C-alpha cells in the first residue's frame, strides 16, 4: 500500500529525514519508535502534505500513485488520514458540521452520493459509540475546550467516520492518562481491518501494549536503524534508544 524509498526531507532548513525507507502492506499495523528529534513527526507531516517540510530526495508511492505530488486534501480523499499529535481548535465550526463536510468531500471524490444531515447524524452517533466519545462533544466547536483525552478521542472518531485506507497516528498516546489511553486504543483496535494499514508513531512502548503492532521499526537520525516484530518494542523499553545509537 505504501512504499517509502530513500526519503530525505528538511523541516525549515534543517535536514531531518536522511534516507528513510519503509514498506507498509494493507492490513498491517506498523509501529515507528524513536526518541525526540529522530524525525517521527516530520515523517507524519511529510506524508500528510504539510507546508514547511521539503522533500529533497526519495519517493513515496501510495496505492501506485506519487503521494508527494498530491495536495493535502487529495491525499485525504485518496484515503490517507493523520491523527494529529496536537489537534487544533476551530472556534465557530461545529464538530458535526465539520466532519460532515469532510466526509462528503471524500465521498464526492469517490463518486459516492453525499450524505444529508439526517443520514450523517445517524452515522456519527454510531461511530461516537464505537470510540466512546460523548455525544455532547459532537455539537461543540471542533476541539474547542476539549480535554487532551477528548481531543485524541475526537481524532479517532474522525478516523472512524472517514474510514481511511492508511491511518498515521502521530504520538496519539502523548498527554493521555492510562484510562484515556485504553479508550483511545480500544477505538483504534476496533478500526483494524485487512484493508486498512496503520502507522503508529510513538516514543514509548506503553501504547504498543494496547495497540499491538505487526512490525516495529526504530527511527534514529532520520532513518530506520532496526526492524523487527512486536518484541522489538520491549527490547527498546529495556535498553533504551542508546543501545541503537551505535548500530
Amino acid at each position: 500500500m505504501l512504499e517509502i524509498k530513500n526519503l530525505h526531507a528538511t523541516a525549515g532548513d534543517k535536514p531531518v529525514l536522511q534516507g528513510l525507507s519503509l514498506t507498509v502492506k494493507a492490513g498491517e499495523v506498523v509501529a515507528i519508535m524513536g526518541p525526540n528529534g529522530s524525525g517521527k513527526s516530520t515523517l507524519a507531516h511529510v506524508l500528510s502534505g504539510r507546508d514547511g517540510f521539503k522533500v529533497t530526495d526519495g519517493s513515496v508511492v501510495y496505492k501506485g500513485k506519487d503521494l508527494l505530488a498530491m495536495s493535502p486534501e487529495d491525499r485525504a480523499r485518496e484515503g490517507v488520514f493523520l491523527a494529529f499529535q496536537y489537534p487544533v481548535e476551530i472556534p465557530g465550526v461545529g464538530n458535526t458540521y465539520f466532519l460532515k463536510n469532510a466526509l462528503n468531500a471524500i465521498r464526492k471524490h469517490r463518486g459516492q452520493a453525499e450524505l444529508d444531515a439526517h443520514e450523517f447524524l445517524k452515522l456519527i452517533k454510531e461511530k461516537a459509540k464505537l470510540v466512546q466519545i460523548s455525544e455532547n462533544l459532537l455539537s461543540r466547536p471542533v476541539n474547542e475546550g476539549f480535554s487532551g483525552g477528548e481531543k485524541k478521542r475526537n481524532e479517532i472518531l474522525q478516523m472512524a467516520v472517514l474510514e481511511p485506507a492508511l491511518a498515521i497516528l502521530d504520538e496519539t498516546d502523548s498527554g493521555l492518562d492510562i484510562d484515556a489511553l485504553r479508550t483511545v486504543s480500544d477505538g483504534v483496535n476496533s478500526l483494524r481491518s485487512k484493508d486498512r494499514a496503520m502507522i503508529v508513531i510513538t516514543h514509548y512502548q506503553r501504547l504498543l501494549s494496547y495497540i499491538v503492532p505487526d512490525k516495529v521499526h526504530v527511527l534514529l537520525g532520520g532513518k530506520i536503524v532496526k526492524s523487527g516484530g512486536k518484541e522489538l518494542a520491549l527490547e527498546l523499553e529495556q535498553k533504551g534508544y542508546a543501545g541503537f545509537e551505535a548500530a
Partner: protein
Amino acid sequence: MDTVTDPRTTYLSDFERAGKALPGLPELRRKAIEKFAERGFPTCREESWRFTDVTPIAEIPFKPAAGTANPNQFAGLANGALKACQITFVDGRFAPSFSSLDLPAGVGVTSVGEILKSAPGVLAPLLQIPDDPFAALNAAFFRDGAAIRIADGIRVERPIHILCLSSLHGEPYVLHPRTVISLGEGSRATVVMSFLGPSGGTYFLNAVTTVLLDPGASLDLTKVQRESQQAYHIERLDVRGARGSSFTHHSISLGARIARNDFNVSLEGEGAECSLYGLYEVAGAQHVDHHTSIDHLQPNCTSRELYKGVLDGRSRAVFDGRIMVRAGAQKTSAIQTNKNLLLSQDALVHTKPQLEIFANDVKCKHGATIGQLDEGVLFYLRSRGIGLADARRLLIHAFAGEIVDTVKTDAVRSQIGGCLALIAGGA
C-alpha cells in the same frame, strides 16, 4: 476658465436654484446649507476623517435624484421575506405600491415626505444640525424617509422593514433619506433597514437616522447595506436612550465603494443599555468606515460593542470606537471589541478603540485584533479532505458567525448568510 471648481458649488447652486421648492422647514434648510457652506467637505487633515478620503464624493457632480422611469424593476426585491410590514423608497421617494402599511393599533409608519407636506413642525425638534457637513447637507435637502412611531406600551412582534432601493441611472445622483424612529414608554419593536442598489449604479446616499427611546423602550435595529459597488454611502445615526431603555443595533456592511457610518448613542437615563454589533466584508477597492460613539451619561448603564471585519483585495476598513463615561456615571459596564480578518496582503485596517472615563466605579474594557486565516487550522481541514477554497469559506463563516448569529430576525440572518457565501466563494 482655468480655476478648479469648489466642490461645495454643486450643492450651493442646487440649493440656490431649487431650495425654495423643497417641502417644509425653509428656515432650517437655510441654516443647514449655511453650515455646510461654512464647513465644506471634510478632509484627511481632520482627525475623524484621517483614513477616509471623501474626495470622490466631493468631486463627482451628483445631481438631485430624479427618480427612476421604471420602478417595476424592483418588484422582485420589494417582494421579499419582510414584505408584510414594509415601507419602501425608490431613489429616495416613498413608493406606496411597494409598501404594506397594514399596521396594528399604536404603530405608526409613514413617510417623512407626507409629514413635510402636512405638519413639518413636528419634525423640527428632531432636527438640530450637528457639526457634520454631511448631516447638514441632509438637513438642507432631505425630502423623504421613514417615520416610525410606536405608542407607549405597544409591543410589535413583526419586524418593520425600511427598504431603500436605488436605481441605475445614466448620471450620478444624490439622495438624502431622513429616518425617524421613536418608541414610547415601555414599547418594543424590531426594525430592519435595507439599502440595496444594482451593480454599476453611481450614486451618493447620504442618510441621517434619529432614534428616540422613551423610558423602558426596546428597539432592535438592523441595517443591511448592500449598495452598488460604485455607490457612496454615508449614514449618521443618533440614538437617545432614556431610563431603562434598550437599543440593539447591527450594521452589516457589504456594499458600496465608500461606506461611512457615524453611529452615536447617548445613554441618557439610568439603567439604559445598548449593544452595537457590526460586520463588514469588503473586497476589491472598497472602503468601509465605522465611527461609533457611546456616551454613558448616567449611572448603571451598560454597553456592549462587537465589530468584526473581513477584508480581501485592496480593501480598507476603519473602526473608530469611542466610549465616554461621564463623571457621575458610576457602575457603568462597557465592553468594546473589534476583530479583523485580512485575506489579502494588500488589505488594510485602521482600528482605534478608545475609552474616556471620568467616573471611578466602572467596569470597562476594550480590545482590537487583526489576523489572518490560521495556516494550522487550514491544514487541519485540508487533511480531512476539505478543499482549500471550502476550508477558507468555512473559517470565514465561522468568524462572521459570531455576529450573524446575534441577528434575531430569521429572514435577515439567512439573507446575510447567503451574501457571505457568495463573497467568500469569490475570495
